[in-house]
């Protein structure tokens, strides 16, 4: 199974029950989903569990999934976001007992080392997530997908199952809210690209011109 095969080709094989093709997609996207989940839960352990549930769900729903612009990525990210929502609903039940476990440093060591780096990342992520909580979840999810995963508007729409116009208005409101609440500068993507709307627009144009 060539590891460079397109998602489209691999997914067609997965739909025929090809486990090796599914394994190639797992190798391709497991780390991406791991980080998407971590950025929404602040826990590497939970992120690992979400990776498992995302890929199991992908396998089980393989006949229902529609590939977006040749990539399974938006769909996988959307399921990871849903997994994070489920995590928070569960977490609400035990909110007092679970307060800031990550920040307290109680964490199972991972066999690969990097323990202190992972703990530090969890502490920093906890701070970021707390600050993000001022936004309604549907605005938060859109701006996170836009800024952190750098999805296009169309990919965010596919990941969350909402119209593109809704993506645009939610993103606008989220950015305006974050910018106005303490008067800081513009909200950029993780990569530092400061012209994302135009870039996204151009991607749309390129697709349109390419007939897709």
């Amino acid at each position, binding site marked *: 199974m060539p590891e460079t095969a397109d998602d489209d080709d691999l997914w067609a094989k997965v739909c025929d029950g090809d486990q090796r093709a599914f*394994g190639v997609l797992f190798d391709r996207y497991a780390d991406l989903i791991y980080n998407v989940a971590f950025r929404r839960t602040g826990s590497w352990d939970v992120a690992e569990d979400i990776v498992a549930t995302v890929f199991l769900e992908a396998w089980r729903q393989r006949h229902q999934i529609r590939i977006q612009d040749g990539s399974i990525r938006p769909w996988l990210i*959307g399921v990871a976001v849903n997994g994070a929502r489920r995590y928070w609903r569960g977490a609400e039940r035990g909110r007092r007992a679970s307060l800031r476990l990550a920040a307290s440093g109680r964490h199972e060591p991972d066999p*690969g080392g990097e323990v202190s780096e992972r703990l530090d990342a969890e502490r920093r992520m906890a701070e970021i997530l707390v600050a993000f909580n001022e936004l*309604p979840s549907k605005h938060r999810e859109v701006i996170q997908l836009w*800024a952190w995963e750098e999805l296009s508007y169309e990919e965010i729409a596919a990941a969350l199952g909402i119209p593109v116009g809704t993506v645009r208005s939610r993103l606008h409101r989220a950015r305006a809210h974050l910018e106005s609440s303490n008067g800081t500068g513009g909200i950029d993507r993780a990569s530092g690209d400061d012209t994302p709307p135009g870039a996204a627009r151009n991607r749309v144009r390129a697709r349109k011109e390419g007939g897709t």
Partner: protein
Amino acid sequence: MRHEDLLGRLPAEMSLPAPRKERLKEDLMAIITEEQAGPNGPQPSRRGRRPILAATAGAVLLTAAAAWAVFQDPATTTDVQCSGHPAIDETIIDSVSGDPVADCATLWRQQVGEPPELAAYQNPQGGVVVLPIDQSVPDGWMPLGAEFRQDIQLIELEAALDGLGGGLSSGCYQLPEAQEITAGHIERIGVSDWTIASERGEADGETTCTYFYLDRGTRRVVLIPLEGVAPPADAPYVLLAERLAKITTEACLTIEETVQATLQEATNLGLDPEEPHLIIHRVPDSGASCSRTDVNVGGRIEVTVRGPSS
């Protein structure tokens, strides 16, 4: 924390530790093999397998939601979170009928099968969530009761403004045109206490389209000019929306007649008329004499048909 930090200074990405990644893949493949083999096939060893679906380990707590979010009237919400089954997966759907339990039950039937008895709650963030009644409810959630309904007019207003057939998503509109379209929908749906406002967006003046949101607190449709693009005029879902708008304008149809017309037009346009590719919602409106449609696209095509049952 500065907002550049919120979005720009994330902890660096990290890979799953290699041994864990390999183990996770092995476990997934074992489950897949087991599922493919069926109940009578060879059963792989479960010894030492990590409980793969126990996505509850570890925790970080978000502080309570901001106060502005807590006191919203749930009747003015226009979406619902359906929960309680792995295949449902906390999905947030646009409300359709005004009855969140019925809307989630539809999702269950699409994704899982006949649902268990469901109940609606308001969560601490002001959102409406539907769960099976036998599932435990997190602290702070309030039961909404079987009679609870979301405002069906607001649901239709949002769907119509989002719609490809006559809504703001049907083209790329400058603010004055968008105001006119919005006023038309407000009048047609009968939410005369709603007004129209606008916010300064980030439009570049060259490719300005107007988007919107419903400000439930002030009962305003807020229009925002933003950079954007018109939907591709030749996309099958755009053509479907246009044809349905024409059909329902020219003829007075019942819901079922409109559904049949939708299936026929979808087939003519080369669209797969089966779920989950095309979802058709039926919303009886005993006060209407003819049906009307809203077509929305977000990863799949959803057509909502409102009107008389017969």
